[in-house]
């Protein structure tokens, strides 16, 4: 493992390691672990005091789920799972010695319980009660008392109104074409209607004692918006609570037999807080975004939101504070340093940082080479304070908190932002500018007068030129009522032969124009055109007519001249419009 992590420059690492609170124990970018924080468990699975890491792994593409058990940097055991693991937890099932915790893995509708890493028990969620009306209908179908179309209509009616959703069987039936119905009904009619819930999340809750090695119940959140508390010995359902949304994250404090508080972050963006002896949520926190993590630290409920904020709430749902993160939060977990009585919140960010907060004070920032996907802190091996981090590419990082390390508040960002120390980038002025300023001070009046005079002259000339252009139709756009025309010309080629394309467009809305002529005026010493005068075809409104002609440059002295294009109406000597084309200098050799 040392080889894996020694790729960085040694000097820089040693330096940063000295000031860091963490020892880099292991880094394997190819560990091939793809999981969520909920599926990471640190527990003394063999009861030998050597804590192992159990990982519910989704597999590289989320298709090969397996359970991995790691001891130190190596994978001790691996066993394939039937379905993707949603959550993992370690819990003590009974009072008997030796007190070896069992490992529970929630997957699909089942919880798989392992003891001593051997399959021990499988708990399946009870079937949900089907809609009685639906049941009736299928019973009738079984006895062929109802035809398929009526069945379909009735089922659709149930779907529209009923509180209890339809079973998959009915939903699939509703999708079918008429011809397929018969076979489907015959195949399935004798089967009981089933609705199966799925476990979405799982956590543990101490049963009746707060000790670290006390019995714990499993708390399951299900897809049908319920929370179940399971008895650790008999695996019966001790309590059932319903929520207004599907739970995603759970946080529990207290003991089941005494008093407990349950916070459930749900898919509707709300967090519900429940207490013992109430079937319904007591308080509700509306986040207005989706929660991405939920951690209970020192009685403060810390929630990460998709808007890159960490919020702190009291157990009654009152917002205490908000901290903005520099990147999207991917995962969160609790950091508990028992020796110092510290509970802090770790947040893994998309930019590869792990930020550790105590309330709103930033305690520490750990930088990892990739986006962090899951975090876990606790006893690993024989080391009390170990941080397990997995990254997006499947990497595994194990860091050990130095025994001397103390998290001090305010170690993060304090004081003015660093940008305040940067110098302002004020544009410099040149000597010339200063000289001109001085000149303006001395002769400002003269400058102003000259400028004003020139401005008037310019305006006068512009006006004159405009009038002249209007009078002699020298402009390329003709705005007369009868022949609204637009002309523009393009010259292509390097010479001595150029291609001159005139684009002529009739800009009237409806009327075509007929009987136009084009005439070129040019210096015959310099240029030769095959035809200096030709007729324009009928111009349909809106279309662009390219009229092409070749121009040959006769001079070899590198002189260029203007070619004038006149558009005329038959029988009139004044042009409708005209264009001056500045011919480019011929770059090729003149034709011999």
């Amino acid at each position: 493992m040392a080889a894996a992590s020694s790729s960085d420059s040694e000097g820089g690492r040693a330096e940063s390691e000295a000031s860091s609170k963490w020892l880099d124990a292991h880094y394997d970018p190819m560990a091939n672990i793809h999981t969520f924080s909920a599926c990471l468990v640190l527990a003394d699975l063999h009861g030998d005091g050597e804590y192992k890491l159990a990982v519910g792994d989704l597999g590289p593409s989320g298709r090969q789920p397996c359970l991995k058990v790691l001891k130190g940097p190596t994978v001790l055991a691996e066993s394939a799972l039937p379905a993707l693991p949603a959550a993992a937890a370690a819990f003590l099932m009974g009072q008997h010695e030796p007190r070896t915790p069992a490992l529970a893995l929630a997957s699909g509708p089942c919880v798989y319980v392992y003891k001593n890493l051997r399959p021990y028990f499988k708990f399946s969620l009870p079937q949900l009660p089907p809609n009685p009306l639906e049941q009736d209908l299928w019973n009738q179908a079984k006895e062929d008392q109802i035809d398929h179309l009526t069945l379909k209509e009735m089922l659709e009616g149930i779907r529209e109104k009923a509180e209890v959703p339809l079973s998959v069987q009915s939903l699939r039936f509703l999708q079918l074409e008429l011809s397929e119905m018969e076979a489907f009904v015959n195949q399935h009619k004798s089967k009981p209607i089933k609705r199966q819930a799925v476990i979405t999340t799982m956590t543990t809750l101490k049963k009746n004692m707060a000790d670290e090695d006390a019995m714990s119940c499993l708390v399951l959140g299900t897809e049908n918006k319920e929370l179940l508390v399971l008895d650790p010995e008999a695996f019966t359902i001790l309590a059932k609570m319903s929520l207004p949304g599907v739970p995603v994250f759970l946080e529990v404090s207290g003991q089941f037999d005494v008093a407990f508080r349950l916070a459930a972050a749900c898919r509707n963006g709300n967090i519900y807080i429940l207490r013992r002896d109430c079937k319904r949520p007591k308080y509700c926190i509306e986040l207005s975004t989706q929660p991405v993590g939920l951690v209970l630290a020192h009685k403060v409920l810390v929630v990460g939101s998709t808007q890159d904020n960490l919020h702190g709430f009291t157990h009654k749902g009152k917002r205490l504070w908000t901290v903005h993160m520099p990147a999207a939060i991917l995962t969160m977990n609790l950091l508990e340093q028992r020796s110092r009585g510290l509970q802090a919140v770790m947040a893994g960010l998309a930019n590869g940082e792990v930020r550790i907060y105590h309330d709103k004070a930033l305690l520490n920032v750990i930088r990892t080479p990739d986006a962090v996907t899951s975090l876990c802190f606790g006893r690993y091996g024989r080391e009390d304070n170990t941080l397990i981090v997995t990254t997006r590419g499947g990497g595994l990082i194990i860091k050990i908190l130095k025994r001397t390390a103390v998290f001090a508040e305010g170690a993060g960002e304090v004081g003015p932002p660093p940008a305040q120390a940067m110098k302002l980038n004020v544009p410099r002025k040149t000597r010339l500018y200063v000289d001109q300023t001085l000149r303006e001070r001395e002769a400002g009046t003269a400058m102003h007068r000259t400028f004003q005079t020139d401005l008037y002259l310019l305006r006068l000339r512009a006006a004159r030129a405009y009038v002249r252009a209007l009078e002699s139709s020298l402009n390329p756009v003709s705005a007369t009522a009868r022949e609204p025309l637009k002309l523009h010309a393009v010259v292509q080629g390097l010479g001595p032969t150029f291609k001159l394309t005139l684009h002529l467009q009739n800009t009237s809305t409806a009327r075509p124009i007929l009987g136009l002529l084009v005439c070129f005026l040019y210096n015959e010493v310099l240029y030769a055109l095959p035809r200096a005068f030709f007729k324009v075809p009928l111009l349909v409104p809106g279309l662009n007519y390219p009229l092409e002609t070749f121009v040959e440059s006769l001079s070899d002295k590198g002189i260029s001249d203007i070619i004038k294009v006149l558009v005329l109406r038959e029988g009139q000597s004044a042009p409708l419009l005209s264009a001056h084309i500045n011919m480019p200098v011929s770059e090729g050799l003149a034709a011999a």
Partner: protein
Amino acid sequence: MAEEALASLSVFFSPICSSHFVPWKLDAPFLSLPLRTQFSASAESQKPQLKKAPEFPILEKQNWLIHLHYIRKDYEACKAVIKEQLQETQGLCEYAIYVQALIFRLEGNIQESLELFQTCAVLSPQCADNLKQVARSLFLLGKHKAAIEVYSEAAKLNQKDWEICHNLGVCYIYLKQFNKAQDQLHNALHLNRHDLTYIMLGKIHLLEGDLDKAIEIYKKAVEFSPENTELLTTLGLLYLQLGIYQKAFEHLGNALTYDPTNYKAILAAGSMMQTHGDFDVALTKYRVVACAVPESPPLWNNIGMCFFGKKKYVAAISCLKRANYLAPFDWKILYNLGLVHLTMQQYASAFHFLSAAINFQPKMGELYMLLAVALTNLEDIENAKRAYAEAVRLDKCNPLVNLNYAVLLYNQGEKRAALTQYQEMEKKVNLLKDSSSLEFDSEMVEMAQKLGAALQVGEALVWTKPVKDPKSKHRSPSASKAASVPQPLGSNQALGQAMSSAAAYRKLPSGAGGTSQLTKPPSLPLEPEPTEEAHPTEASAQIREK
């Protein structure tokens, strides 16, 4: 189910990587029968069913995974799972479609997302969530009326949802039905209080031009969520607009405590510091903004005016020119450029900047007055007079305009006209004195008294204030603002300075020649001070705020 369960069982019992399991010696137990009867019983009971008909997959099997990928913004992985789940369930998994639609919307394919949400609404018509999302997509497509209809449908299914009320309110805002919008937003607040709802309510009041009500709303919002920097900044800016500087500074300061890099708050607080002459502190604060938003015209305008206040005129011009380059159509920057060039005695340049400013803002007396000052210095008396005439016509409360005009007329020997202007000025002064306790610029007073003497009207005018009331000073700029222009642009001092240069140009023995620029004692904190020109920036910050 049985098929899958069976498969799962077989996997569950067989060691997959037996080699790995060897050290654990787990082979035997994994193959042995389960310890509990329940386990095997369930397995056996499922076996016979398998032969009859294929089991249906559980529709919601991977909803949790889709959701986890979605909230972690890993949309590619999310889409892969959605595709798989939809294939398996033949498009029946509503949640997968729902999230797919959400992702489409995030990617900007609003129309596609709308269609998918409608599919969801068909799959489970009783779910208000789907309708809400349909409405949201309609809203994003700009179909506010349709969105309102769908939201109203959703509201029938779920009456206690603040989100529906809030979004209905927002739709009504876009339809300009402010009363309905207010009702809905108040409903939303009643159900559950959210910062966003407060912001929207405040926005309505601002759109209606009711600053006081907006401030009330924002006050409540800040009470509810005291750490929201956006709320704090907005409230601070509103107070600033009303001229209640103490409170404005308090809120802006709070905003900066929570977020020391808040662009808007820094600009506003900085401009207030400039007003008090704390140029160095303001410049330090601006550095943060210069790093975050280096191409902000108001920022460079303010920095420029800081340098102007520190009498670093070349730097001031550089910064203002950059501001002007970034926002060539902002007349306030042009105004400031004109002012600085007047100070630098570059009258020809000043003329250009001022005339450009007038082109963008043709309704401000002070601009014409400054133009007239520039023209006077360029010895174009005719046009200067015309500019003054325009200034006098437009301006309603600034005595400086008349005073400067009177000085020009007196210098031209038109004593009668000068006297008229002088009397106009007296009227305005009296008006100002009655309405507020505005501190008159000493240089202006001196000039007026000299002119009065020259015109032989005597010293009848009482310039000095009876008592300096420190409290009422806060309000003074707002009073003057209410009278005419939205901001007390171009303070007395600045104009006085401009005026003095105009006066120094000719015969009137004044000795004011632009030397007495900083005459105010710095101990008086909230007077209109030399660099109130910085105010345009505040204004622009506020405008953007709206």
